[in-house]
């Protein structure tokens, strides 16, 4: 795992490229503290900070083809690199290293851009063709690794994290009010959005080629939510799921360093821990978060699992004040507005994992999206059939939706809910049927912004432009939206990758192997009760995991939110309402921010509901983002801590 950064076609004199690239890489050194390297010529400067995982001795970057034509700065892992290497070797390629990076480079040199379709991995890279002067940027199919692109005074800037841009001369951050409104309403920035003007995120499964003044962009991987021909029997479906997950874990155990597992105590990570033990032949080291506040804690399930598997387990215990005190630092790494605090304990967990000497962890991320684990999938099944059902059936289904929420548990609540659900049984937001209720709830946070416009215009446009979206079933549309918004925009990025890489820890997600997602799409809703979430996953592993974990049902991972701030840091009332700050931020509605903040700090915690908590965290993260990025306090003054290996192809006329 690594971080990349660079610029292309900059009007700045090439004599200064080395110092500039050093500064940009220093901003993201936490992603790859083991080595640093760069490639420079008169048009382009690009570099890598490396976290050594595969081929520790000779896998350094940047790496070029023997003829010196292609140069690659690569962030990620190519899980099927051994198979591709074998295929390329059969074609006569002689490899110089054992690294997956050289396989990526050689695959591009051999097959061109179509090599992307052969890749099973988590990656983002910049590949420079010195012959044509083209710069190719590409990102993996599910958006596991980040890649941001910005235009600045004629130059193209790119980096794994936006903070690298702060080191480029004259680059300044400025909030984009429309993107913030969209993020506040839909919980996360949309795939191409960053939250800031002039910075774009390369969307999952897409590439961008910069060719002189022209660009070419496109998608190399689409989400396959239809799957293949379903097996005839449930037993065959179970076998299919097991086989694909075993392969997915096998390739993700490829590493020259030890691989650990995040074990939350839930079904998904328990399956991964079990498979890791089975495939590696010995119990892995497991890591989890223990909350002091019992309402968030799952340590009993974690203990049951780790005893059952015999893993070497360690936990990090997190209190309310830990979350509050670590929040600013975690926001610095998140880089985008955040709607809940659950990413903060993940930051502390990654810190703990790294302190234990572990660089790679497997996690259960993606299972809920692939195997329909979220309530929104049951919601949309109920709503899309609403008019065919009687009240008794509707109420029975409601009881299966969110049993862990108080307002969804009890006959009176289900009866009252009938009127609410009936309203959402009609599509009023084109293309967003499954998410109407969630997105409507997001409107509250949008009130924090002035001049917000229509916060749903961008997401409506996203689905309207998606080829084939209209033909998907209501559940598949919901899946598509989950993959494109919450998964890539928050779970994989803010809560996952960014928190792990802040401490030089690489996370790998077997449930997001393309074959696993395809097999899930093949079997979803074809067997069992559709209101029993992740039915086939439970069936597949009920005989090897503790019954308590299999039967527990969905317990969303959450962390202390506004009440923790109110209790432990009353000064946040002033921090969030400081007139100078609000005036400087510009996009916030200062009047509503003050009213809202007063209400949160003056109300008993039980009066603060989900949408208020989300608004609070969005507000607090925006204020910290302003501090770090708009005011520029995220700029690190220290140079790279490791020596910079330089491939210098600048013209000989330039001084060395």
């Amino acid at each position: 795992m690594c971080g990349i950064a660079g610029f292309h076609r900059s009007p700045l004199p090439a004599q200064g490229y080395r110092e500039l690239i050093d500064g940009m890489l220093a901003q993201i050194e936490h992603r790859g503290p083991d080595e640093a390297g760069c490639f420079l010529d008169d048009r382009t400067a690009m570099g890598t900070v490396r976290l050594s995982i595969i081929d520790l001795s000779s896998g350094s970057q940047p790496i070029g083809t023997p003829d010196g034509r292609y140069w690659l700065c690569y962030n990620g892992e190519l899980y099927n690199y051994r198979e591709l290497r074998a295929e390329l070797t059969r074609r006569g390629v002689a490899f110089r290293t054992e690294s997956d990076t050289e396989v990526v480079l050689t695959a591009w040199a051999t097959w061109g851009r179509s090599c992307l379709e052969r890749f099973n991995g988590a990656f983002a890279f910049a590949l420079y063709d010195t012959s044509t002067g083209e710069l190719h940027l590409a990102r993996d199919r599910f958006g596991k690794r980040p890649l941001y692109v910005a235009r600045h005074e004629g130059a193209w800037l790119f980096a794994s994290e936006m903070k690298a841009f702060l080191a480029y001369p004259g680059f300044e951050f400025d909030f984009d009010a429309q993107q913030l409104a969209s993020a506040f309403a839909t919980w996360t920035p949309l795939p191409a959005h960053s939250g800031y003007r002039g910075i774009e995120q390369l969307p999952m499964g897409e590439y961008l080629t910069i060719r002189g003044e022209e660009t070419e962009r496109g998608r190399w991987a689409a989400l396959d939510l239809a799957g293949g021909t379903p097996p005839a029997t449930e037993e065959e479906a179970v076998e299919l799921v097991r086989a694909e997950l075993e392969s997915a874990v096998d390739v993700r155990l490829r590493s020259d360093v030890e691989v650990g597992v995040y074990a939350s105590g839930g079904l998904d990570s328990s399956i991964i821990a079990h498979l890791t033990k089975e495939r590696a032949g010995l119990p892995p080291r497991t890591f989890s978060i223990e909350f002091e506040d019992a309402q968030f804690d799952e340590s009993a399930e974690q203990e049951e699992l780790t005893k059952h598997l015999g893993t070497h387990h360690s936990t990090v215990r997190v209190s309310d004040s830990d979350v509050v005190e670590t929040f600013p630092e975690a926001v610095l790494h998140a880089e985008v507005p955040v709607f809940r605090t659950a990413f903060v304990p993940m930051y502390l967990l990654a810190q703990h994992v790294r302190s234990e000497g572990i660089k790679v962890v497997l996690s259960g991320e993606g299972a809920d999206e692939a195997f329909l684990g979220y309530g929104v999938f049951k919601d949309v099944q109920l709503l899309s059939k609403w008019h065919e059902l009687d009240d008794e059936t509707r109420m029975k289904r409601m009881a299966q939706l969110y049993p862990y929420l108080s307002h969804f548990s009890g006959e009176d609540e289900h009866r009252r809910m009938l009127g609410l659900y009936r309203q959402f049984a009609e599509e009023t937001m084109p293309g967003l049927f499954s998410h109407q209720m969630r997105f409507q709830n997001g409107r509250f946070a949008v009130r924090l912004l002035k001049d917000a416009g229509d916060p749903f215009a961008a997401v409506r446009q996203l689905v309207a432009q998606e080829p084939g979206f209209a033909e998907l079933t209501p559940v598949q549309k919901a899946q598509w939206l989950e993959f494109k918004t919450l998964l890539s925009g928050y779970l994989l990025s803010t809560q996952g990758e960014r928190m792990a890489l802040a401490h030089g820890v690489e996370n790998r997600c077997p449930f997001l192997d393309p074959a696993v997602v395809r097999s899930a799409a093949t079997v979803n809703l074809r067997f069992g009760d559709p209101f029993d979430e992740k039915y086939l996953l439970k069936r597949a592993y009920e005989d090897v995991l503790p019954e308590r974990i299999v039967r527990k049902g969905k317990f969303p991972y959450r962390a202390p939110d506004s009440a923790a701030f109110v209790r432990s840091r009353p000064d946040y009332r002033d921090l969030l309402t400081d007139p100078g700050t609000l005036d400087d931020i510009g996009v916030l509605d200062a009047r509503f921010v003050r009213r809202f903040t007063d209400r949160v700090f003056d109300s008993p915690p039980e009066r603060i509901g989900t949408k208020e908590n989300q608004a609070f965290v969005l507000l607090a993260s925006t204020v910290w983002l302003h501090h770090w990025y708009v005011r520029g306090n995220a700029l690190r003054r220290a140079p790279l801590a490791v020596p910079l290996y330089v491939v210098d192809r600048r013209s000989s006329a330039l001084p060395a």
Partner: protein
Amino acid sequence: MKQESEQYAELKKYMEEQFMFEFDSEITEDSDLFKAGVLDSFGYISLMAHIEREYGVKFGEDALLGNVSASLSGIVDFVASARRQTAESR
């Protein structure tokens, strides 16, 4: 039995306190409170429970949101109508 004007004032106060907003030129008494970002499912269930408790009406599918927008004025009209129907049926 409370009168409609009293009911109006009381519901308005309850909603402002419960849902952290104030009726003003932006969110009026006729605004759809879902679309205004005031009501979510948790708030909706709390509001229904409060109305059932305070005004003696029962909600089902064809209740509040089935026929009227979730505005303060719509809610008050609905409660008044439901109570009249209850009184007439006695």
